């Protein structure tokens, strides 16, 4: 029920929200605003940065073809990982939601388990698997294949697989939560009325799960856009993604204004892509209603 703010009860409710609001303001909004302000400063190697108002950092960013490909690769990795996470996560989430097994909690823990391992450890595992004379190479050599020609480290594929493995559990958990709230008697009713399993999925289950798909897609997409460890370790130094690029600018080049401009661009691109994805999924959802 809506509570007007300027009533005794409304004020009390606002007071309860104040600590969380203050935390968000101090820990998120304020640093973001500082970052935005820095992006208009001028870089100076001897003084770190000179306070001024200039668009030069953004001009350099848009003129430099290197950063065009950084943005392009970041969006493509994030987009493909998100779509793949939905495609691979949906059947698992569906099975988890439907199962009556007494081992259900074990399956859920098994799904969550990769989240308990840090990104660095997980990437190290992939390195041992994909690297030169790694598990995959040894396996291929065992089958008489030339392992060197299958070196997947420092490639687009390695980053994609590594990123997907990070985000897949998030997608499964979100979808499972939504699917468990769907009344599966609808599915049975559909089947009773002659709908094929494909029709049941595309016309009943998927449309009803779309809010979850939408939420999962947005979360996963944001995680992928901001991925640092996986592209850094599995993609190698030459791999172009936004988070490693802006980390390099801020901490190695010490070019804070340009790094801040990159961070602002990353935020803008993420927000725009998220809005577009949400709008597309909402429209798809409404067409089913």
């Amino acid at each position, binding site marked *: 029920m809506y509570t007007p703010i300027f009533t005794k009860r409304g004020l009390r409710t606002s007071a309860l929200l104040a600590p969380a609001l203050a935390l968000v303001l101090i820990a998120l909004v304020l640093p973001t605003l500082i970052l935005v302000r820095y992006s208009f400063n001028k870089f100076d190697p001897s003084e*770190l940065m000179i306070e001024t108002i200039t668009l030069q950092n953004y001009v350099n960013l848009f003129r430099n073809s*290197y950063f065009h490909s950084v943005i392009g690769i970041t969006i493509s990795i994030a987009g493909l990982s998100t779509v793949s996470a939905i495609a691979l996560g949906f059947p698992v989430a569906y099975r988890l939601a439907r199962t009556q097994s007494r081992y259900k909690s074990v399956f859920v823990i098994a799904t969550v388990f990769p989240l308990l391992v840090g990104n660095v450890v997980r990437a190290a595992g992939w390195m041992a698997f994909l690297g030169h004379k790694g598990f995959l190479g040894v396996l291929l050599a065992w089958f008489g294949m030339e392992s060197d020609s299958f070196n997947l480290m420092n490639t687009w594929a390695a980053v994609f697989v590594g990123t997907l493995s990070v985000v897949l559990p998030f997608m499964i958990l979100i979808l499972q939560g939504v699917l468990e709230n769907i009344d599966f008697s609808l599915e049975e009713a559909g089947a009773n009325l002659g709908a094929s399993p494909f029709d049941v999925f595309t016309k009943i289950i998927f449309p009803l799960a779309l809010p979850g798909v939408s939420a999962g897609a947005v979360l996963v997409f944001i995680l992928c856009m901001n991925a640092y460890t996986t592209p850094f370790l599995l993609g*190698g130094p030459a791999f*172009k993604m936004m988070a490693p*690029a802006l980390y*390099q600018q801020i*901490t*190695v*080049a*010490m070019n804070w204004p340009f790094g801040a401009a990159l961070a602002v661009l990353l935020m803008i691109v993420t927000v725009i892509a998220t809005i577009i994805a949400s709008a597309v999924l909402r429209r798809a959802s409404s067409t089913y209603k």
Partner: protein
Amino acid sequence: MSNAIDRRTFLTNSGLAALGYSTWATAPNFANAATGNVVVGTWGGDYENFLKQYVAPIAAKDGAVFVAAAGGEPARETKLLAEAKRSLASMDVVSMTTETMASVAEKGALLEISDQDIPNLKHALPQLKRPYSAPHIYSGLVIVFNPKLVPKPSSYADLWKDDYASKVGFADNMFYYNIIAAAQAHGGNPSDYEPAKKALLDIKKRSKVYPSNETTANALHTGEIGVTLMWRARAFQWAKGGIPVENVAASEGALPIVFEFGIPKFSKNIPGAKAMLNAMLDAEAQRGFATAMGYLPTVDNVELPSDLREKLDFSEEERSRFFSPDLQYMNRQRAEWLNWWKQEFLG
């Protein structure tokens, strides 16, 4: 009892008082007030562990308690500068390499130090001393190679020869030192690394780049590469760890790397920080570090065992050829060289 003071007693007491005062006045400041925690911003892993093992007990005798703030140098530099801009410091001591230390000192983030503040500083090797930092350990850039895979090189320029094609590896985090070595091999000088550009683009197709020192070591271990550029101390550790490598100082001149410690201008425990720096330069701590970590002592009152010195040290002739970079040029050009490395060489 007489209260009269005779001449002898007066002179004796005056002398003792004067001696006491002069001792108090000339004693390092930290002797009076070096108490409490001293937050030391440093590298994690071995460096942090050895600081705890060899330095912390000595600093504790002066009342300074070692508290590590471990992390990478870029993050530490960023934090130090960000805090200094607001007259703050969450670290009391910071460790950095020579050029980074020079860069933050130029930005006014460090306190000046002297032999009066830190007595052991008088033992520091003169060529490594700076007004804003104490040298802790040092080594030099060498060519590390696997003799079973490549012939023994004698210069950086050798790496461009066909014998080494596809066997050269570079560590990405060493990008600036790789650039300097390439410049040295192709006519560059301490204030001009431009010749490195063409040279590195020439070798680009015949070399590999790894994200870190560890991944480079792994590539040497598996035989994916046969030669790289690395600090002699680390090459010593790699060989000790079973990687089949040897090392040689390039004829163009080895680039020294000095790990230094400085005190942030706004440190909350300056006496404690000075005590910590003094402990780092202590002969016993220096010997411990050299033995365990493979870096050379920066003080003149430590003698290493001959076998260790043979593996870690540089000969007189190699020292005379040390490459002294222009630190100001290095720091001013760092951003541009990083962009070139990322966008042109790797891109």
